[in-house]
């Protein structure tokens, strides 16, 4: 089986408008979705990312104290999963609860060692 990475982009604006109860409920949906993949032994790992951080520029090594991406494009987290094909991985990603809250999911295959 191949490995794929789901990159979750944007959606922070929606998240911020929700109450703590709604956020907790939303995370339970994530748990169900990831839990199903774990049951099928397709879940490898993944984390959420804070929106803040630094960017280091090439050559000059100048540091900017924020990510360079616009917030719509900002990576908010990632998962690594197993699937046979890109299509299969995409079908799995379509059930991501983040899509309900205006997050985009980018599905990318992990480049294996050659």
């Amino acid at each position, binding site marked *: 089986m191949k490995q794929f990475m789901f990159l979750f982009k944007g959606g922070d604006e929606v998240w911020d408008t929700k109450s703590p109860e709604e956020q*907790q409920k939303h*995370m*339970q949906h*994530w*748990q169900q979705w*990831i*839990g199903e993949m*774990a*049951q099928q*032994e397709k*879940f490898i*790992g*993944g*984390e*959420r990312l804070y929106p803040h951080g630094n960017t280091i520029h090439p050559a000059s090594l100048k540091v900017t104290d924020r990510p360079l991406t616009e917030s719509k494009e900002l990576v908010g*987290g990632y*998962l690594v999963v197993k699937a046979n094909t890109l299509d299969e991985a995409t079908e799995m990603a379509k059930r991501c609860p983040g899509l309900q809250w205006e997050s985009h999911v980018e599905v990318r295959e992990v480049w294996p060692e050659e």
Partner: protein
Amino acid sequence: MESRDHIDTTLNHLFRQESGKMVAVLIKIFGIENIEMAEDVVQDALVSALETWKFRGVPDNPRAWLYKTARNKAIDVIRRKKHSKTIDFSDPQKQLLTSGYTLKATMNDFWEEDQIQDDFLAMMYACCHPDISRENQITFILKSLCGFSTKEVAKSFLTSEDTVSKRLYRTKEYFRKYKIRPEIPAQSAIVSRTSAVLSAIYLMFNEGYNSTHVDQLIREDLIGQAMSLCRSLLSGSQTRLPEVYALMALMCFHAARVDSRTTADGSLILLFDQDRTKWNPILIRSGEDYLNKASFGNALTTYHLEAAIAYQHCCAKRYEDTDWNEILGYYNILLDIAADPIVFLNRSLVILELKGPEDALKSLEKMKKNKLLEKYYLYHATLGEIHQRLSNHALSRVCYEKAIQLTQSKSEKQFLQAKITSNR
């Protein structure tokens, strides 16, 4: 600022009630190979409670507070350990603990109220695994499931803290080596596995009830904990067996009489001399209820019969009202079920009441060469009593002296010495 005493009492009570359940849940999360990790989290939660409550007062729901704190500390431990090899996350549910997306929600699932009780029961069955020796079982139960300190366990069994630590270590090693996964046994094994749990509970109870060596507080604690463990078996639908009700009834009947059994200075009072108005009517009433519930199904265990005997004593208003015939009948069935020499000895005391010393002596003759009874002080004390009634004073004295040699208990020794003195 809240009074220190109030906080201490609340916490002590809470700790005895809840620490075992928290440990059971945490063992399910961290795995049986990480019992210390589970115990540390509970200990940490307790320390936090003590420190926080000192300034902010005891919260409205201290139990919920303690559980939430333990849960948050468990989350911290998982975050710290998730890349180490100490915790096995291979199970799909546990794998969800390794991601920030699912850690909190999954952790909350582990602490669902209706699961906690099952985890606790599962841990009790794990502790009472037939391969673990009885004393190691009870030591572990007291320490990990009843919140006793090593020192308190040592006091309960008149042994050193060092011995207790060794026993705990051996049990933990057993769990680790055989990767025991705590679970409530399947229907086919439930009766035999529960029987082991019940004997551990009854032994714990007796340690509190019979031993006069242990200090009063620990004895009450042992009795209370044994009854509370039995009650948790009664709360589970799979574990609610007739014999569990029977043991619960038996312990109620015994516990009802506990205060009338000793004088203020700790010496024993015989049934004959006990002030029956001191017996606890509420406990006797609950005992009756449990005994009624114990009679469903076909199971007739030693607990049923012992409870029936204890009940006969509880319902007699005066010693003279005791229905010895009924009691003898129960003893006869008891001997049929389990040919236990101690039961035989107790039965001879009933014969002594019912038919007099000659018959009692005749009955005991059959047990003359029994090795267990030879070393049992009550056997010799009983013989002493019988010979005394037969006016064989010299023989009686020899028996009492033998009994004194065999008991460790100071109050028993005093009691027997008084018998010898009155014998002259």
